[in-house]
């Protein structure tokens, strides 16, 4: 599976790594739902750590789409919510 760390780059990860990411992801969601920003940041940091340490970085020129995208940990709670909202944090692409 290919995972993108938003703002960082893409990595190829194995199944064990994915399973660990899934566990951390559940805890991150729970933290977001109870407005616990420090817990959310900590879990996201941990997810980033798992990917950068155990994953294999793809070349910058690789055009393979990612299977999963992990948001950055330095967003505020509001920004993280905005990221998932209808309007979104990601601006429209230039036209």
């Amino acid at each position, binding site marked *: 599976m290919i995972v993108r760390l938003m703002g*960082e780059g893409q990595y190829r990860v194995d199944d064990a790594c994915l399973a660990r990411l899934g566990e951390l992801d559940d805890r*991150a969601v729970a933290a*977001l739902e109870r407005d616990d920003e420090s817990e959310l940041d900590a879990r996201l940091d941990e997810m980033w750590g798992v990917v950068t340490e155990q994953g294999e970085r793809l070349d*910058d020129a690789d055009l393979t789409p990612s299977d999963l995208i992990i948001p950055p940990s330095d967003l505020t709670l509001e920004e993280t919510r905005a990221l998932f909202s209808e309007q979104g944090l*990601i601006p429209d692409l230039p036209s």
Partner: protein
Amino acid sequence: MAGLMGRATTVVKAKLSRLLDNAEDPNETLDYSYEQQLTLLQNVKRGVADVVTSKKRLQLQTGQLEQALVKLETQARDALAAGREDLARAALERKSTTQAQLRGLDEQVKGLEAQQEKLIASERQLSAKIEAFRSQKEVIKAQYSAAEAQVRIGEAATGIGEQMADTGLAIQRAKDKTEDMQARAGAMDELIASGTLEDFTSGGTQLDRELEQISSQSEVDSELARLKGELGAGAERKELEA
């Protein structure tokens, strides 16, 4: 409830599907997408330049505050030498406020540096992917039937589109930060201009006047002493001549 990874993935892919939906003629899609990529690359370069400009402005203010610190220290010492502890205290209080402002500026400069690094990394990745896309697009145009091309274009466009969304977000975040800094830098400029921060160095304050008085008084005293000395010497000379 989907996880954060799932949600982020959905959000990014939704942005891209809108982009690809507009596609009718594969060749046109490729060229259009490529143009968009180049526009975004220009935007990210401009973003880096904006961050650098903001950083320079903060660094300029840092220099101004550092000068104010030196002057305040000198003034405190002068006041103390003149036996005016109250004035020395006032100058040192202002110095401490200025030091806090300086630490704040330092933090902001570091924040902008972090943004700058992120943008530069994003620019590098986008640039590498655009180059790969450009050569792939020529291959697709030359070698594939319309149906096959559609599939390959979908893959390539999704791959680079993801990077574009990522870079777009980096530009947006840097822009928000830069605007925030600009506002603060503007407020700081106003503070400096109004003399609130540089009261003692701008020359117009009560403290400044008092310090000036001290120094001019001591000048008068020493002039007086000099004149008295001359007069005294003259009188002695007259006595000797008589």
